[in-house]
Structure formats: C-alpha cells, structure tokens
C-alpha cells in the first residue's frame, strides 16, 4: 500500500469569479515509504498547490488524499495530525522564522504537538544536527544568522516534528553551490536515519538527476510524465517543449549522438557519459 496517495485531486482557485483558475486537475499520485521523489515542472504548473494538499493545508475542490490508507480530511483532528506526519518546507522558509532564539523557533512544531519539555529539547537538538546547525547557533536570534543558516534553521523546524514524509519546495533556491550540496546531503541523512520519504520540488535538474528514485513532471496542473530519471530525461524534446531542460550532460550526449556517436539514450549523469565513451573507445581499439 502506498504511504501517501491522491485520488482524482482537483483544485480551483477563486471559483466563480473572473479570476477562476484550475491549478490542479485530476491528479492520481502515489508515493511509497522510503522513496525519494522529485517533482519538476515549469513555474505555474501547479506543483506548489499540489504539495500543499499532501499535508492537508489546502482542501481539494474535489478528490481525496490518503495517508496510510486513511482520508486525511476524515476529521478535523486527523487533518491536523497529518501536518505533523507530512512535514512541508515552503519556498524561502527563512521568512517564517519569528522566535527570539533559533532553539525556540525549531521547537515551535514539537511544542504544537504537545510533547514534554525534555522530548522537545531532544528533538530540537536532533533536528539541528540533521540540518547542520552548530549548538552555539541555537542560542542566537534567528535574525543574526546568515541566509544559508536561516534556511537550515527553518528546515530544522520541520524536521523536528519527525515527519514520515518530508516535502521540500525548492529547498536550495538562491543558495551557493556549496550550500546547495550541503542541504541536499542533510536531507539524505535524515532520510537514511529515519527511513523517511522525501518529496522534493526543484528546478535544478543536475541535482535531481543524481539523487532521486523517481521523477514526476507537472504541466498545467496535470502529471505529464512520470518515471525514473533515465526514463524522464530521455524525453529531451518533451522537456524542451514544456520549458524545462534535461541535465547538461544529457544534452551533450544528445548532440554527440546527432554527430554520429552510437550513445545510449538514458545518459543523465557525468559518470554515465564517461563510461559510455570509455566503452566506445575500447570497442574501437
């Protein structure tokens, strides 16, 4: 049984006004326990609206969302509970920090869960560790931190709830390459330690190609393409039409193929291309 799934999910904004807009239409989606899933799609394709349904923040116009087989809108209490089980990190989460210390801010979620003080403390320290924050930083005001550290603190605030599913909306947007790699590494550590399911919305094809098990592509509120990175990135043309692009190495391989090299179609990591070229050279002697 999938851990989290949606059935014929629809969401219409401002229904019945001149501003009416269908953001998500008829989406059937499922994710298994422990999976690492990437969601891609052009701006305005409905990704962000979609993920807000997965933890019950938005109520679908029609259709349903199931967590462990239970409809999350079954009761008000269960919808709220789901928010702790399905953690959602918004885009630019550093703008949601508000407490006087980083510690207090990370503790906001666990406190809302009604945990004891000792347990809150334990979770905050653990989450700070996962997010790569040093203990000395916990007593600072969140507004004294640098941009990248603020981002970590905000992510820690969600991890501290120990969600079984962690959803991140462009967690690396606006960070430098090193900060990006570190945050992705932190997320992977959390996944391993807690056997968590990760859903990551991103525009960074290089990053997604390296780490995820499966990619879901959104286009105009629908799932346009779904599969392993190899399957999705072999559709270079379709990706281009949708205003996205395959990883650079795929494009290089595509061009080499056009020039006459007999390369495979599913090259999306630099290592793939290297191995392929090596093989070709050996074959030619």
């Amino acid at each position, binding site marked *: 049984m999938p851990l989290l799934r949606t059935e014929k999910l629809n969401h219409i904004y401002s229904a019945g006004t001149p501003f009416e807009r269908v953001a998500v239409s008829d989406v059937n989606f499922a994710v298994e326990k422990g999976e690492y899933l990437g969601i891609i799609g052009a701006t305005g394709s409905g990704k962000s609206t979609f993920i*807000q349904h997965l933890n019950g923040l938005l109520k679908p116009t029609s259709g349903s969302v199931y967590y462990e087989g239970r409809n999350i809108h079954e009761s008000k209490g269960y919808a709220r509970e789901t*928010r702790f089980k399905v953690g959602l990190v918004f885009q630019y989460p550093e703008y949601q920090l*508000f407490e006087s210390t980083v510690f207090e801010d990370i503790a906001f979620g666990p406190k809302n869960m009604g945990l004891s003080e000792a347990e809150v403390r334990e979770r905050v320290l653990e989450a700070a560790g996962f997010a790569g924050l040093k203990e000395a930083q916990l007593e600072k005001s969140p507004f004294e931190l640098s941009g990248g550290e603020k981002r970590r603190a905000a992510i820690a605030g969600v991890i501290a709830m120990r969600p079984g599913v962690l959803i991140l909306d462009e967690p690396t947007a606006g960070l430098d390459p090193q900060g990006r790699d570190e945050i992705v590494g932190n997320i992977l550590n959390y996944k391993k330690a807690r056997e968590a399911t990760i859903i990551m919305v991103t525009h960074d094809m290089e990053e997604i190609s390296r780490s995820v098990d499966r990619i879901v592509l959104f286009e105009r509120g629908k799932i346009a393409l779904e599969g392993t990175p190899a399957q999705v990135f072999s559709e270079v043309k379709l990706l281009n039409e949708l205003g996205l692009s395959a990883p650079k190495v795929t494009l290089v391989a595509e061009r080499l193929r056009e020039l006459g090299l007999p390369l495979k179609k599913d090259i999306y990591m630099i290592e793939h291309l290297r191995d392929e070229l090596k093989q070709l050279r050996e074959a030619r002697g």
Partner: protein
Amino acid sequence: MLKDITLGQFFPGNTVVHRLDPRMKLVLTLIYITALFLAQGLFGYALMLGVLITCLALSRISPKTVLRGLRPVLFIILVTVILNVFFITGETILFEYRFIVITQEGLLTAAFMASRLLMLIVGTFLLTYTTSPIALTDGLEQMLSPLKKIRLPIHELAMMMSIALRFIPTLIEETDKIMSAQKARGADFDSGGLIKRAKAILPLIIPLFISAFRRADELATAMESRCYHGGEGRTRMKVLKSAPRDYMALLFGAVVIATVVLLRAAG
C-alpha cells in the same frame, strides 16, 4: 481565504467606464453621492437605481462580483434596517406587542435607508472596480494639486497612497504564505479563547512585519537608484487628457443631479 476579498479591487477591462478619465470618474462619483443624498421619494430612488444599473451594465462588471463585494457590509445594512424599523415612530401602526411597535413610516424609512446605503456602496465599488489604483491616485494628485500652493505635500501623499495600494495584494499574499508555513508546523489560528488566539497570531505578525520593513527598504533603494527625489519637476509618462466622452459623462451627471433636484422640489 484572504484572497477572496474583493473590496476595493480593480477588475481590468476596456469599456467606456474603464476608459473615462479618472479625474472625471472621481467628480462623477462625488456627483452621484450628492444626488443620492438629495434623492427623495420613489421616483428619485428609481432614477438613481436606473443610473446605477446603467453604469454597471456599461462597465460589464458581473452582478456576482458586486454581490460578493457586498458581503462584508451586509451586517451594517442589517443593523441600519433593524434600528429604523423599531425606532422610527409614526402614525400608521402595523404591529404592536408590548414595547415593540412597528409603523409603516418605520418600514418605509428602513427600506429607503437600506437602498440608499446599498446604492452608495455599489456606486463607489464601481469607481474602484473600473479604475486602476495608479490611475486613481494620479487623478487625485492632479485634482488636489492646487493645494500645493499652501504647501501641502500632495505629491508625497499621492505617492504614499499608490505605494500602499500597490502593496495590499502583496501583503495579503505574504500573509497567506506565512500562515500556511506556520500551519504546516502545527500553528492553530482559529480555535481557543481570545488570549490564546492573540498569542497564536505572533508567529504570523512578526515575520510579516519583518518582511514589510525589508520590502520598504528595498523599494526605497530601488527608487533612489532611479533618482527619485520627490515631486518637483517630475513629468509623467501617461498625461491625463480629457476626451469628448468625459464631457458627455459630465453632462449626464449634471442632468441626473438636476432631475433629482427638480423631483425633490416637485415632490
């Protein structure tokens, strides 16, 4: 949600009403309000209703939108009606039970008051529905510019107003976003007593203020780096010009108010 608020919202369009000079629209709205308060009797009200419906039809604003906009003010209208029905004394008593007395005069006054309020609100909606905030403040600035002679900072006031108007949707969106982010961490904004709710709003208010200050700072920098230095010597990209249709509209307004006055004198 917050996004459904339509009070004071602009609906782009290309009708005669949309194209009118904003200055003229401001004047006409003032004329309309004056006429509304001068109107008397069934004929007066019917005339004003006719004028309002004609203007609404010309602007192609859907009745649904108007009704949605009215929702927040329904309560005020309801209170007005209740006060009038129960507290206006008159001769023709329709219903009497102990201290509750309902008279024909009371009912009539209530009906007139309610329709006057409704028409007043819908009429002013028409102005904001069909005029972009920028055009509106531009118009206002030009109309008030004679006051510059007595050293009133009209340009600065207008600039402040247009910036404020410009940022209302942005702040609403921001509020929505921060609210969702905190809800995702289990914040509960809509249950509990007064104190609990007031406390619950802190995680919303603090980030909102910080972001508003940040935006103000960024906007000031952006304006300065484009050499903004206040109103002196500033020219406009879009100069407001009155077209024949503006004078036609003014004539129409004059006819309406004259008719209302005549009806009042006759009745």
